[in-house]
């Protein structure tokens, strides 16, 4: 559905690239995550893909059609973009914000009331957006991004600053949209969100892709699973970690036989650990 080849972008239009030689493909109804620390090039890539920034070098092919410097009107009609900052009119109420944005599109749009209900703001629709809490404003911005029923949805840190309940409801909406056929490009520095939602992720550092695969494959390929054992010795509860391959495997079996084992936990490496292992950098 979306094919990106050798994408470069420089804000100063020189050799100082914010995104450098980035290539990837996203299938229809796939959730593709861009995982990286602040300033890694995630938002720039999303900016170029969504048409906020010009296409300087490289190619973007969507449904077989190559993008020009800026996309055409038809492209903007089919995309939704959720930003890290809510981008809402604070002097308008939630309902009017959505109604205004819906009026900008040519095709069929969602009913603002339905979308407000989806994000848990049904009772706050008549309240000025400026009076919303940060989380409510974030949800309104998220609702705005899906008002035109997009079939390509760009989401930048969609759960940032939300309480766990609200974050879960946002994740549910994302999965529901995916099941309805929406292709989702998600940028985040939150490994849990990426792990939970994305079919595939790309690690991006200094504008370059360091690795790309499904979270599971990345963990299998680059991770080192462990087993954590809690046992009693001399009346004290102690803990010891074992690897799950090679010599460690034999040592673990022997240890279990010889000790008073209380608990056994398998330890799967997190995406962040894989990220650090591959890039030498943290995600914050």
């Amino acid at each position: 559905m979306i094919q990106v080849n050798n994408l470069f972008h420089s804000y100063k239009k020189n050799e100082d690239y914010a995104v450098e030689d980035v290539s990837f493909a996203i299938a229809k109804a796939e959730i593709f995550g861009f995982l990286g620390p602040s300033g890694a090039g995630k938002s720039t890539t999303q900016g170029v893909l969504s048409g906020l920034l010009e296409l300087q070098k490289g190619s973007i092919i969507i449904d077989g059609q190559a993008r020009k410097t800026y996309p055409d009107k038809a492209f903007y009609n089919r995309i939704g973009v959720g930003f890290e900052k809510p981008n809402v009119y604070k002097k308008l109420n939630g309902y009017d914000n959505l109604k205004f944005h819906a009026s900008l599109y040519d095709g069929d749009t969602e009913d603002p009331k339905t979308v407000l209900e989806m994000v848990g703001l049904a009772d706050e629709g008549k309240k000025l957006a400026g009076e919303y809490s940060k989380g409510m404003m974030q949800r309104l911005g998220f609702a705005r991004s899906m008002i035109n029923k997009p079939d390509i949805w760009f989401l930048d840190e969609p759960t940032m600053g939300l309480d766990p309940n609200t974050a879960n409801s946002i994740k549910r909406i994302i999965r529901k949209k995916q099941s309805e056929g929406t292709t989702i490009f998600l940028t985040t520095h939150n490994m849990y969100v990426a792990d939970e939602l994305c079919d595939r992720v790309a690690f991006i550092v200094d504008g370059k892709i360091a690795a790309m695969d499904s979270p599971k494959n990345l963990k299998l390929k680059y991770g080192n699973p462990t087993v954590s054992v809690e046992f009693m010795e001399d009346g004290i509860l102690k803990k010891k970690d074992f690897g799950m391959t090679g010599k460690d495997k034999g040592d673990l079996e022997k240890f279990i036989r010889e000790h008073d084992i209380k608990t056994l936990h398998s330890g799967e490496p997190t995406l962040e650990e894989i990220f650090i292992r591959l890039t030498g950098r943290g995600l914050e």
Partner: protein
Amino acid sequence: MGRIFNLFKKDILLGIKDVFIILEVVFSVFIVFIVLFLIPKNIEQDQTIYVYDRSGVITGFMEFFGAENMDLDSELFVESREEIIAGIETNKTALGLIISANEDGTFHTELLTQPYTSSAMMKFIDVNLEDLFSILTGTYPPDVYAAVRVTGLQEGMQEDIPFNKKMLPVIIVMMVGLVGLFAMVSLVGQERSDETIRAYRVSPASLNMFLLSKHLMLLAVSIVTFSILYIPVMGFNGYFPALLIILLTVVIGSSLGILLGAFFESPMAAIGWVILLMLVISLPAISLFAPIFSPDWLKFIPSYYTLFGLDAAMFPDNNSHIILQGTAILSGIALILLWLSAKVFNQSIRKEM
């Protein structure tokens, strides 16, 4: 059509909620009240003319017309050229006049002017003197002078316009024309600082439509505030030409506002430039009240044409060419600035994420 209507509706709604529109209307009502009831109708604005009469012709005039029939309030009689020069050096709006008699009985006049005295003003004095001398030397009868005043060259120097009405063009330029500049900087800056413009940019609507809607909103507000200020004072006399001139000025002001808004991310960051521009744009008002101050560089400021165009529309005096000239020049400037501001804004915004 539907899209521009919705954008316009949103901008009007934001204008009302930001209290900008309400303030504009309330201030207009307040100011029209001041113009009608508090500003005096008569304020002397006579020009001082230092006269060195070597010929004794003024005494002749006094005898001819009767001193009581001559309006000599502005004239200050001196005894030498040096006194004139000292006088006009001190009083920067004053002029000097030396009258001498030639041997053949004709008169010679020398006008000492300020470097910025307008040619229209000089011509006006010249023609007046020529008239008086013609009467005195018997070239044409005195009743011609009494009946036909030289008005064609006065261009805004009418004597009998109440001062409060004379103030109106300046008030309209400040309250209506310049508000476009300030309001546009604020409207564009707000959209940039709240980043609502980013959300707009990923919709199918264009940035030109975004700007057009704001222009339309400011024009609509300007029509209302202009009417509040104009109609109670002037009725519908010259209403439509004056409205056309002020709307063109609003477009110029709001285009300048877009240019500033393109460079400054928040309204407060641009405030210094806004004040500076507003001061420069106000300068031609001096020329309206003191026609002797009319240096050529003033004509490079668009509000010069607004002020004199409004003045001509409000006080018709054989000066319709000023309205036409003003409208043509303002239209040209408005078109250039509309195009330029849209281009600069598009380029500047597209560089941003």
